[in-house]
């Protein structure tokens, strides 16, 4: 195996992706291990190693005596070709043992467009794709992660799904597995038992019944399975497991720095945002704990840059306290502190100066929509005034680059809203002309638009996506309204976002499409150089399914959703009410100002939904 690998590696790009051996990787003696987990990330090494969830769960599992969790990533196309040519099966980085030899094969899934990588990885591992074809306890395949709140398109391939935050549930699953293995259970027996762990969803225990028009009539659980499965959360982040001794990749990865998680959830309720709702209720770490974790992580990794991560870091109440303390640590040590996803409405002059000191000069805004009316409709509480004021402060302090993110195709969007984007850009340029203190360096505006994707567990889960043609018309409309070279406009292609919409709201029948697409070469779909829309379209055709049925159709108010069995703790009526408010351009206040009664507080009795 190793000899074979050594011969393949000189022929592929970035061979360091495929060998492990990094500082901090966990090696255990096989004699002391009775449960082995192949922890798979369905994308490249550089992306997977940047994923904080992966790092947390790697730590959680390896912290358990007798459990050895190893990493597996999607090989790049050149490596895959070589592996297939030399019949080298997919292996785990730490031991280099084939994935096929592992007890459990776990996937952490963050985005829909990695589904084909999951199938392709199983295939490369030589493990049967369909759950029903895998007999016995070995090679149980399960998944979790941000995108598994509707796992239905993968239902045929997964033995079970772990919903929500994994720190606690993963341990419970592994403990049960150990017992099952020791007592030599049948697979069926294990599945019945694992379904009793709160937060575990076993797709094969539910039978979808379709109506003639293709929509669902019902999803029928078998008698031993719970009617709904509620996601898990970690109630107290201060005491939750957090790995401060983590693996330090030997090659450059996407987020090549220490990353500390500030809070989970988001007090805002932007109506398109799945993460915002799915991670509710908001739970914060105290500045004290955060500081200790930050310092310990920096020291153990030797990183010279640190980021705070959360959905909306500047909403963190203790940000000032923390940033001050952290900068006192960072500046003398020449460590760079960077704060992503700042919000326009609480970007203070002081914070700006501090950031400038640590080497930042680019502002990022995500107003998502071009007019106040549409921003109200999507509940994006950013006003033009706030954006312009922030720009003014920043420009006068020497900043000269702005990144702007918008979406096209949002519900209720009109041409006026599209053109509003260009107007807002123009107003930003005017601010710079009036207040910019370093005009010589010029202003650069990076404008990018994404194609709105309706997602489960959002107020827009019922919405139809506009057609790719209509999306492109709006792109061109916007393009023609931007007349200056200071603006670099980039837009996402429509095909990928349409497929994302299909998979996000898809049902079990899509399993056949996935399998067919993978068979015909679909993989690494989120990479432009690999994405092939034609393969997908052929797969839909040969399976007799219409992508527009999933993407471009408005779902009925009472329609049975494919993800009906799963609950994130928020009421369906709340989402519907929010949707109605969107059509009236009415905003909902954030959770700090006033509770909107979504239901998430029931997950965390006694806690407050705030950061």
């Amino acid at each position, binding site marked *: 195996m190793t000899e074979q690998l050594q011969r393949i590696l000189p022929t592929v790009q970035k061979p360091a992706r495929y060998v492990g*051996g990094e500082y901090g990787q966990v090696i255990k003696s096989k004699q002391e291990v009775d449960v082995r987990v192949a922890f798979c990330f369905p994308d490249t090494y550089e992306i997977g190693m940047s994923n904080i969830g992966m790092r947390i769960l790697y730590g959680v599992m390896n912290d358990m005596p007798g459990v050895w969790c190893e990493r597996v990533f999607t090989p790049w196309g050149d490596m895959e070709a070589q592996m297939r040519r030399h019949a080298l099966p997919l292996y785990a980085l730490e031991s280099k043992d084939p994935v096929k030899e592992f007890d459990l094969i776990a996937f952490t899934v963050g985005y829909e467009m990695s589904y084909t990588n999951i199938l392709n990885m199983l295939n490369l591992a030589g493990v049967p794709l369909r759950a029903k074809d895998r007999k016995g306890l070995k090679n149980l395949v399960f998944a979790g992660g941000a995108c598994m709140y509707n796992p239905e398109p993968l239902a045929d391939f997964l033995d079970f799904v772990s919903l929500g935050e994994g720190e606690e549930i993963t341990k419970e699953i592994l403990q049960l597995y150990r017992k099952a293995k020791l007592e030599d259970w049948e697979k069926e027996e294990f599945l019945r038992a694992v379904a009793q762990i709160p937060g575990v969803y076993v797709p094969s225990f539910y039978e979808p019944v379709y109506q003639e028009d293709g929509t669902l009539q019902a999803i029928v659980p078998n008698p031993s399975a719970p009617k709904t499965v509620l996601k898990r959360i970690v109630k107290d982040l201060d005491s939750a497991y957090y790995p401060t001794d983590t693996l330090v990749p030997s090659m450059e990865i996407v987020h090549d720095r220490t990353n500390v998680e500030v809070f989970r959830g988001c007090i805002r309720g932007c109506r398109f945002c799945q993460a915002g709702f799915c991670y509710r209720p908001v739970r914060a770490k105290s500045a004290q704990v955060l500081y200790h974790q930050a310092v310990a992580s920096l020291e153990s990794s030797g990183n*010279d840059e640190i980021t705070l991560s959360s959905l909306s870091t500047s909403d963190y109440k203790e940000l000032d306290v923390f940033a001050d303390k952290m900068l006192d640590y960072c500046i003398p040590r020449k460590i760079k502190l960077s704060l992503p996803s700042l919000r326009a409405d609480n970007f203070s002059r002081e914070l700006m100066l501090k950031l400038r000191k640590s080497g930042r000069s680019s502002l990022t805004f995500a107003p998502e929509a071009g007019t106040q009316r549409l921003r109200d409709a999507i509940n994006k509480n950013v006003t033009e005034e706030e954006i312009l004021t922030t720009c003014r402060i920043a420009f006068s302090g020497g900043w000269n680059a702005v990144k702007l993110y918008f979406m096209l195709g949002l519900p209720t969007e009109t041409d006026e809203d599209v053109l509003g984007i260009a107007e807002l850009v123009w107003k930003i340029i005017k601010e710079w002309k009036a207040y910019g203190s370093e005009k010589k360096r010029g202003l650069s505006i990076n404008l990018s638009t994404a194609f709105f994707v309706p997602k489960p567990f959002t107020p827009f889960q019922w919405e139809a996506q506009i057609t790719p043609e209509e999306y492109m018309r709006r792109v061109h409309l916007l393009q023609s309204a931007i007349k200056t070279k200071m603006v670099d406009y980039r837009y996402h292609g429509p095909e990928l976002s349409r497929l994302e919409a299909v998979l996000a709201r898809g049902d079990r029948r899509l399993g056949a499409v996935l399998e067919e697409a993978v068979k015909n070469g679909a993989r690494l779909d989120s990479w432009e150089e690999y994405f092939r829309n034609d393969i997908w379209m052929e797969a839909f055709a040969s399976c007799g399914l219409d992508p527009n049925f999933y993407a471009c159709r408005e779902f009925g108010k009472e329609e049975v959703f494919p993800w009906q069995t799963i609950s994130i703790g928020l009421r369906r009526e709340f989402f519907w009410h929010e949707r109605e408010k969107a059509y009236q351009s009415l905003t909902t206040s954030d959770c700090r100002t006033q509770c909107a009664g979504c239901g998430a507080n029931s997950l965390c009795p006694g806690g407050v939904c705030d950061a």
Partner: protein
Amino acid sequence: MHRLLFSKTADAIWTSHLDVMRIFQRAFLRAHIPIAHTQGYSPHPFVSVILPLSVGTASQCEILECTLEDKEISFQETQERLNQVLPEGIQVKEVYESSRKAKELTYLQARLELCYDSGIPSGASEMLNSLYSRETLEITKKSKKGETLLDIRPMIQSVQVQDHSPTQIWLDTVVCAQNPSCNPLFLVTAIQTYLSQLAPDFVRCSREEVFDKEGRVFR
């Protein structure tokens, strides 16, 4: 200026030149060994590895330059502390002070292990010996600008051919390290060019030692 002599073996050979420097920058921080930073807008710990090694080649004699700032930490301790926090396959062998210029490094000794899966072809050693004693050895070198012909013979100081096992021939060679530089693997390219029937199935390459102009070990 200080130098660290380190080896790069096992799976660490797949790490690139730039990544090795980043590995050391972090290792110094993990080991709490302060080193001088670069000047300028975004200062970072300064390290430099002389004579970039190609990905896939092992080495016993890599040299990293930096400036150790804390006089209290002995060279011995620096070495020990770094070795505790370096990834598999990268090991510091010596820490020392040096005023010699990197450009004095002139020759390098390398070992090439030629693997023949179905046994060494008969007469291979003799043919290789006469190959390397030719007057000229021209190979085509691919670069971004296209292909160029390169005579590597003047850059080869010595080659020893040795039947190591029934399936392996080892070449121990000393070549020019820089100005001009000869990648030891060019010796294999020469085999492919002149004796294609002797082209090995696989080659492992390891840098063994570096020398100055007079042939003394360079540190």
